[in-house]
C-alpha cells in the first residue's frame, strides 16, 4: 500500500475513533473498548475495500458486513457516518430514546447496517446465510463479518464455522478481533477459546493471522482471502482493546463503560494529537 493511502486511512481511522468516543460519552453508556480495537479493520473495509454506496444502502449487489459482536455498534456507526450513510453529528444521539442509533445495530433503522445483531454468536450465522445467497444467486458480492474473541465461546459460532466450510463459502471472510479480553476479564481466565487459529483450521477454514492495527497486513490478508477458492477465510486479527486511547488500552473495564466528560476530553485530545502528528510528517 502506498504511503499516501496509508496515511489517509490512518487519518480516517482516527476520525472514526473520535466518533466512537463522542457517541459513547454523550450516551453515557456503550462499548468503547471493542469498538476501538476494531476501528482499523472497519476503516479498511469501508474506505478501501467494500463496494457500498451511501446513496443506495440496500443495493442488492453490494458487499455486506455483519458486526457479529454487535455491542461494538459505536465503531460501526462512526464508520458508517464518516462514510456518508448518515450525519456524523447524529452520533451524539447514540442510545437515546429520540434517536435511531440503537444500542445494538438495527438494520431497519440505521442506514448501512446489513444485519441486526447484539445477541452474540448469531451474526456469523447470518453472514453464512448471506454468503450462501450470494452463491445461489451467482452474485459477486463478498460478505464480511467481525467476531469477538470472547464471542467464540458461543457454540453457535462453531456451527456456523462448520456450515461455511460445508457449503464452500469462499465469498465469506470473518475477522476475529483478538483483543484477549471479554467482560469478566482475560479470555484465557473466563473460558479459554484458544488456540483460535488452530480451531478454525481444524474446521477447514483458510486461516490468516495479522496485526489488526497494520493496514498493510489487513490489505494483504483481505486480498489473500479473495484469492482463496472453495473455502471461507478467517483473519485472526491480534488487536489492542481500547486502541488509541492510552488509559483504555488493554483494560477490561473499558469494555462497556463510557468515559466521563474530562476523560472523553482527554481521549479526544490524544486522538487529535495523533492526527496532527500525521499531518506533520
Amino acid at each position: 500500500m502506498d504511503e499516501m493511502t496509508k496515511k489517509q486511512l490512518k487519518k480516517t481511522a482516527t476520525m472514526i475513533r473520535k466518533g466512537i468516543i463522542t457517541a459513547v460519552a454523550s450516551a453515557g453508556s456503550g462499548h468503547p473498548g471493542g469498538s476501538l480495537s476494531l476501528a482499523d479493520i472497519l476503516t479498511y473495509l469501508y474506505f478501501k475495500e467494500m463496494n457500498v454506496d451511501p446513496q443506495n444502502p440496500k443495493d442488492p449487489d453490494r458487499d455486506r458486513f455483519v458486526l457479529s459482536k454487535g455491542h461494538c455498534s459505536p465503531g460501526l456507526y462512526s464508520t458508517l457516518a464518516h462514510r456518508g450513510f448518515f450525519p456524523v453529528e447524529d452520533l451524539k444521539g447514540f442510545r437515546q430514546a429520540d434517536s435511531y442509533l440503537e444500542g445494538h445495530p438495527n438494520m431497519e433503522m440505521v442506514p448501512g447496517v446489513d444485519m441486526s445483531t447484539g445477541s452474540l454468536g448469531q451474526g456469523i450465522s447470518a453472514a453464512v446465510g448471506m454468503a450462501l445467497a450470494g452463491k445461489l444467486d451467482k452474485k459477486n458480492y463478498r460478505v464480511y463479518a467481525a467476531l469477538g474473541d470472547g464471542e467464540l465461546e458461543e457454540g453457535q459460532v462453531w456451527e456456523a464455522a462448520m456450515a461455511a466450510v460445508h457449503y464452500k463459502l469462499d465469498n465469506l471472510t470473518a475477522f476475529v478481533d483478538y483483543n484477549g479480553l471479554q467482560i469478566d476479564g482475560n479470555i484465557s481466565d473466563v473460558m479459554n477459546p484458544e488456540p483460535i487459529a488452530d480451531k478454525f483450521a481444524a474446521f477447514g477454514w483458510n486461516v490468516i493471522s495479522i496485526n489488526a492495527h497494520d493496514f498493510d497486513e489487513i490489505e494483504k490478508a483481505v486480498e489473500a482471502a479473495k484469492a482463496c477458492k472453495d473455502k471461507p477465510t478467517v483473519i485472526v486479527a491480534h488487536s489492542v482493546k481500547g486502541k488509541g486511547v492510552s488509559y483504555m488500552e488493554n483494560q477490561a473495564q473499558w469494555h462497556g463503560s463510557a468515559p466521563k466528560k474530562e476523560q472523553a476530553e482527554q481521549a479526544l485530545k490524544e486522538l487529535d494529537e495523533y492526527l496532527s502528528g500525521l499531518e506533520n510528517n
Partner: protein
Amino acid sequence: MSEKIATRVAYGQALAEIGHDENIVVLDADLSGSTKTSEFKKKYPERHFNIGIAEANMMAIAAGLASCGKTVFASTFAMFAAGRAFDQVRNSIGYPHLNVKIGATHAGITVGEDGASHQAIEDIALMRSIPGMTVVSPADAVSTNALVKQAAKMVGPVYLRFGRMDVPVIYSADTKFELGKGITIKDGKDVAIVANGFMVSQAIQAAEMLAKEGISARVIDIHTIKPIDAEIIIKAAKETGAIVTCEEHNVIGGLGSAVAEVLVKNFPVPVEMVGIEDVFGKSGKPADLIEKYGLTPDNIVEKARKVLNRK
C-alpha cells in the same frame, strides 16, 4: 418508598447470604458483574463457575449439576436465559424437572440504552409455558431476598426475573412472602390493579391518584406468575368487578394473559392490560422508555377508568 435498589442487586445479596449452604453452585455466562452473582463469587469462589458466553451450554451444565444433587443458580440476562437457551431450559431442565434456579436479570425495557436486542419482553410467556416451571417476578429488594431464599429451598426448576434499574423498596423487612401466594398491598372495592415486577410500585402510585378521583382501587402483587394465586384473583374479581393488569412484558403471554386465563374459567369480569403492546423496545433512558411504552401510573389510571366504564 424512598430507598431504591435494583432487584438484581438484591438477588446477588441473597445468593451471598445463602451461599454457606455447600450444596449451592452458581453459574454465570460472562456477566457476573451485571447479574451480581459476583457477590456470591466474592465469598465462595470455589462454587462459582464462569461458563463464558455460552448460555445454552450453561443451562445444560446446570442440569447436569442438578442431576447430581446440587442446587444450581444459573444467571445471565433474561434475553439469553429464556431466549437463547430456551430449548436447553425446556428439555434439559424443565422436562426432567431438575433443581435449577434461573436467575434472569436485565428483563424488560428498563434495561434502557442497550435497546431491543437486550430487552426481554417475551421471557415470562416462554417460561410459563414450560410444564412444571415456577415463574417469579419480584417487585422490590425485600421480596426478592425472601423469594430467592424460598426458591433455593424448594426442589424443582424456577425462573426468577430481575431488573437492571433501581426500583423503590415497597415492603417492610418483616413482610411475609410465600411462593405462589399473591399479596394485597392496598384494599379497594371499585377496581383491582394486579401487577408484578417494578409495575407494582407504579400501581401503588396509580391507586393513590385514583383515590383522589374517589375511585377505590385494590393493589395486588402477583410475584409468582406460575403457579398463579387464582384465589386472590377470583376474590378481587368478585369484590371489585373490574381488573387492570400491569407488567413490564408483552401483553401477550405474560401476567395479563395469566390473570385472564384464571378469570375466563372462574369469574369473568372486564380486564384492561398495561404492558408492552406487542412491539419491540428501543434504546433510551429507562425513564423515557417507561413513558414511551406507557408503563406509567397515568396510563394505569386511564385503563382503570376504561375498565370501570365496561363494568
